[in-house]
């Protein structure tokens, strides 16, 4: 960005080059990050901007966790009542479609791409009780511990470092017992722009015990495996 001698970035440069966003996203070089940190001390008013952007990012993350972002991305200002009726009809059709697919009552999903998808249509959204970020599969012991929410509804967010952004994965959740690994849930998903696969898992639907989360890339590369230990409710 600037020469190595320039240890303090000025406010104009920070604003024009979106330095705060890039810092929080881990997109600055070490020298740039050092310079930005120095700038914070020299220009304490920058802290306010950092705080505000951090809040903004958290706001986006909350909307995503609630499964509300997709609707907002597709949001259109209502132009006519007819459009509203069409939208309502679409929702009714979608609900009807889902209902028809359920030939018999079935439990809510054990893993899903969104919090909303973990809930049955008739349920209130499952509360998010934990969020886990795993950089890699360790291969020894459990990569992550989860606590069952027992009879209360609950979900955990899993952020799994996967492969290149945009890679499609077949995800399998396998329960481990003396007889080996038994698939209990599966879905397909795509790594986001950071190469991260984000999933939500039910904490009330999973019985305590060991599990294996297997991500198999569509390009036939070796699967990634993360071991999960679901503990009894605390």
């Amino acid at each position, binding site marked *: 960005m600037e020469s190595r001698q320039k240890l303090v970035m000025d406010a104009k440069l920070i604003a024009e080059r979106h330095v705060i966003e890039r810092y929080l996203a881990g997109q600055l070089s070490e020298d740039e990050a050092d310079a930005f940190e120095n700038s914070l001390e020299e220009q304490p008013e920058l802290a306010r901007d950092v705080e505000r952007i951090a809040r903004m990012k958290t706001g986006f993350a909350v909307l995503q966790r609630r499964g509300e972002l997709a609707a907002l991305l597709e949001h259109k200002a209502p132009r006519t009542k007819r459009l509203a009726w069409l939208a309502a009809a679409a929702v009714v059709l979608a609900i009807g479609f889902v209902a028809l697919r359920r030939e018999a009552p079935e439990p809510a999903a054990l893993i899903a791409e969104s919090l909303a998808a973990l809930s049955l249509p008739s349920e209130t959204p499952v509360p998010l009780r934990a969020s*886990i970020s795993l950089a890699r599969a360790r291969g020894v012991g459990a990569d992550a*511990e989860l606590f069952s929410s027992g009879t209360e509804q609950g979900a955990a967010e899993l952020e799994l470092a996967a492969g290149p952004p945009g890679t499609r994965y077949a995800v399998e959740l396998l329960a481990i017992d003396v007889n080996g690994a038994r698939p209990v849930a599966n879905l397909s998903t795509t790594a986001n722009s950071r190469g991260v696969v984000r999933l939500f898992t039910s904490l009330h639907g999973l019985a305590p015990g060991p599990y294996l989360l297997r991500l198999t890339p569509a390009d036939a590369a070796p699967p990634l495996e993360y071991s999960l230990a679901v503990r009894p409710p605390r």
Partner: protein
Amino acid sequence: MGSTDFPLRKEDLAGIRSQLERKCGNPTIAEDLLSEAIETSLVKLREGKIERPEQLIGYVYRVALNHLRNFRRRDKAPMSSAEPLEMLEDERTSDVAAPIDHARWAQVVMEVLKELPAARDRELLVSFYLGEEDKDSLCKRLDLDETHFNRVIHRARERFRALLEGHGLQRSDFLSVALLLVG
């Protein structure tokens, strides 16, 4: 921790704490790191190593962000079975005010998004702030020029600021001269 002659309130640091939580994966650890950042800064101040008192808040952020950066470095480090788990505990163990704050920020972001008529601009914001996709990639993918990108980001930031201040966060929260306790 003692008092200072200028503002330093933990609630003013709620945004950076939430980022620390996301990165380190544990609200208790995030809280500890933030407390440590504040304490380190206060010690520096008392030792006269921070020239001007108004620099304290910047110094706190500097230390806190450095923790965030260290977690990012650790994410990129080679695999080691000795590394500790990165895990978020039950949200009930974190600051009880956090979910309320987070919901408020989400509401403001929702308002910002709803005010944008172009779906492409909404996608830009989501991809930039949540997906952390870089500017060049976004401009290319969404077929945007740099001027448009800058304008959308600038307006969104300003709108978020205005709405947030309308929801209670004031500029004076950071700059007012008041006697406040930390910790």
